[in-house]
């Protein structure tokens, strides 16, 4: 029986029929970027979450959550984004709205909160995140932020991220809009420096921005600013000083790149530093863009050196992992795409792949990449994840915190590709780390006993 039919028989969520396809079985488009279906136990968070994860790595900003305490509490320092300087971003500030504030409005409290924070913490920018409540009680965030900005002579930027107003992707856009306001005000466009780019969609988890910056430095490319890993107010403000934007996490940053192209004529292209193949291709792509012969030869030197270094290690893992089957359920499409390629590099087939916020184009790429029979699904839930992992005989799941215990309870190995991890998965070093982690979990003696 067709796997999809089986699912519809025993798992019921008919509203989700179009969000699941089997490669090679159906011709239709996968439905994505829609609201989650009530009661399906989606793995997704909300608009606020999307905004928070994108903006939070701005290290020297005050991040103030305007809302009840939970929103701030659940997102306090949950990212593994590292900073080379300020650690102001690791605080979780909240207006902690109470019943009275909800009845009488939270504007005055917000204004006082900004006063208090600005006085206490030197910062040039305050991001004020709207939560569900703010959208409903109708606080005029724009007005409060403007008044505070005038009063303190710093930038106070509202982030329109009411939780119910769309899904996590809408939060990415809200964060990008906030960042664009930072840049927009800097109209004094300085001559673009030679061989300089902005690096979009890397949040410096476990120092990943630093790894990539080192590669780029070696081939003669300057990073003007990374959005938003280890970024600072002033660097973001000067984002127009780069001649091109490269995008790692497209889900969160393609909108930003498109807007910057419109507004400042800065071109962009996608890259990926996940896995050997993508890292190599991306470095070459950058050298080709700059059209610099010297840079191209530097890239080849770097690739040659690093490949020689990591290949034997990867080969060791490949021999041990060959033929294993993986399931992927991650936040964004770009990560999913890179993972398919990375698994190939170490001899593993992908049998199920899904994301929380993948875009149409990303699902098309995924569909092209995977083998016939692979399940592709958008905005999945525990019921479906369990079903397909078991049906397809997956030995391994890639996911985040919520998926981990499910995999373990199914007796399936697991690797974290979540945002609080403590080891880098980018670049050549990351490719080895991933293989090592896959080996550690897949080949653990524990599975002998279950």
């Amino acid at each position, binding site marked *: 029986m067709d796997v999809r039919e089986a699912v519809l028989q025993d*798992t*019921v*969520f008919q509203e989700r029929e179009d969000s699941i396809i089997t490669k090679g079985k159906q011709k239709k488009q996968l439905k994505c970027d829609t*609201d*989650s*279906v*009530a*009661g*399906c*136990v*989606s*793995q*997704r*968070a*909300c*608009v*606020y*979450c999307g905004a928070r994860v994108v903006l939070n790595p701005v290290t020297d900003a005050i991040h103030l959550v305007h*809302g*009840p*305490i*939970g929103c*701030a*509490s659940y997102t*306090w320092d949950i990212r593994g984004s590292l900073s080379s300087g300020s650690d102001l971003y690791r*605080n*979780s*500030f*909240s*207006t*902690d*709205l*109470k*019943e009275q504030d*909800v009845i009488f409005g939270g504007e005055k409290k917000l204004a*006082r*909160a900004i006063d*208090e*924070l600005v006085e206490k913490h030197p910062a040039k920018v305050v991001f004020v995140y709207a*939560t*569900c*409540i703010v959208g*409903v*009680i109708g606080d005029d965030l724009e007005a409060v932020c403007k008044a505070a900005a005038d009063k303190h002579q710093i930038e106070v930027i509202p982030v329109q991220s009411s*939780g*119910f*107003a*769309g*899904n996590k992707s809408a939060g990415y856009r809200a964060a990008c809009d906030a960042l664009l306001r930072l840049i927009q005000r800097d109209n004094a466009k300085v001559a673009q420096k030679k061989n300089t780019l902005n690096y979009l969609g890397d949040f410096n988890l476990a120092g990943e921005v630093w790894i990539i910056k080192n590669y780029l430095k070696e081939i003669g490319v300057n990073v003007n600013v990374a959005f938003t890993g280890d970024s600072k107010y002033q660097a973001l403000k000067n984002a127009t000083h780069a001649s091109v934007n490269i995008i790692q996490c497209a889900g969160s940053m393609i909108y930003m790149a498109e807007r910057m192209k419109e507004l400042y004529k800065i071109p962009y292209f996608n890259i990926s530093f996940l896995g050997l193949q993508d890292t190599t291709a991306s470095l070459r792509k950058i050298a080709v863009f700059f059209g610099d012969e010297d840079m191209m030869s530097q890239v080849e030197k770097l690739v040659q050196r690093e490949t020689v270094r990591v290949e034997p290690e990867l080969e060791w893992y490949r021999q041990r992992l060959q033929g294993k089957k993986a399931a992927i359920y991650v936040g964004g499409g770009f990560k999913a795409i890179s993972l398919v390629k990375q698994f190939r590099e170490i001899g593993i087939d992908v049998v199920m792949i899904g994301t929380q916020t993948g875009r149409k184009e990303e699902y098309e790429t995924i569909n092209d990449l995977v083998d016939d029979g692979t399940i592709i699904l958008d905005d999945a839930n525990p*019921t479906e994840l*369990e079903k397909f992992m078991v049906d397809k005989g997956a030995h391994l799941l890639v996911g*985040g*915190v*919520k998926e*981990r*215990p499910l995999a*373990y*309870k199914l*007796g399936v190995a697991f690797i974290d590709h979540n945002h609080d991890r403590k080891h880098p998965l980018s670049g050549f070093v990351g490719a080895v780390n991933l293989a090592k982690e896959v080996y550690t979990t897949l080949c653990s003696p524990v599975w002998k006993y*279950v």
Partner: protein
Amino acid sequence: MDRGKSGANFRDVNENPCNMCMPMGGILVLKGLEHCMVIIHGSQGCATYMRRHMAEHFNEPVDVASSSLNEKGTIYGGEQNLKKGLDNIIKAYQPKVIGILTTCLAETIGEDIGRISQEYLTERDYGDLTVITVNTPGYGGTHSEGYWLTLKKIVAKLARKTETHNKINVIVPNISPADIREIKRVLQLMQMEYILLPDFSDTMDRPYERPYKKMPEGGTKLADIAAMGGAVATIQLGLTVDDSMSPGKYLEKEFGVPLYNLPLPMGIENTDLFMNVLQELSGNPLPTCLEQERGRLLDCMIDSHKYNGQGRSVIYGEPENVYGVVKTCIENGIHPVVVATGSKNLKLAQLLDECLANAPIECTVLTETDFTTIRLKSRGKANIAIGSSDGKYLTEREGIPLVRYGFPILDRTGGQRLLSICYAGTTMFLDRVTNTLLENKHKNYRDSMYQMFYQGEQEGQELSTESCGEQHVMLMQSN
């Protein structure tokens, strides 16, 4: 005693929250009912964030549904979303009982979950499905209040006046699955029949088994809750709980079930209180093995008393747990210097007044507080912290080592397996605390002695200004 600025929401900013919101507590309780599925009426993020926190703490899958309110639902009402959500969870999980909790959003737009759920049951003809609704606006209190309020609502909804039977009701605060199992073990040793609520000892700490069950076994049975009105007595481990949220009080008032409202049995005195009530109610003496465990706890206390005498603790978390830890610290010569909770809790403040009245070192008590305040008050005073993972900055930024206890434990594994109550659990807890004090002492004493006393050959050596816990203890001793 320094009351800090307790009892009032004194500032306009909460800097690094020391609590979570009401629905979180509600989920915990509902996960302790047999075959219960929870749906949160609000936007998708609330359910997901709480699942994430719980999955990380318990290392278990935590399925919680959401009505996934979007803009349309927010403007025109979320009734259809909630009903559709109920349809879907019934299909996928076949629960025996459903808990519906609200969020800030649902409360603010005025959703009447009681009416909607009644309508739903009638429309779908689900006469035998139990639905428990609890209003848990995120701005209405902390997860601790959400916990107790949900317990009270469950009891109010399900308990009946039944014929008296020989079971006792045992109502527990937010303790670990291992702690709940410890209570059950003690009750069995005392040969008592009981109804324990909530019981997430199995549902949130499941043995590995095949095939995987998405609705795990375990949890308090609905029939047992219904029988709570006919119990011999209620033991509620909720000394700090306000009467308005007290399930034990409700059972006493409605059905005349005598209430023994006791502190969490942590430490020798509080565990004695618990054991005494068990002896009184059962008519059985303490069995030898429990007596021996008490003796071993005493032995442990003696073994560690000198090391503990150097302890200056900051203790934070949910009121009931905080009180248990404070008592345990005091019994062992560890001086609390900061005691804090994110909840607004007058009873805790009163209880602490009593037990800290004669403390030789001044203690700051903070209620409705945040971690920035806790850090400030602990700086240079505390050399050990006891509480959830959220206190990790006390270590990272103030050099105060943290013994993880309570909820949530996100940065270590095994939150569900931490045993800390009754005689045996207190012994384990105390060893964890003492060993952390010792580790810190051993780690720092060479350096701190050198810094304090070594003058060298030259003059002008300055003492380090680093606020290191060990050095601080030495200074206090020399004072």
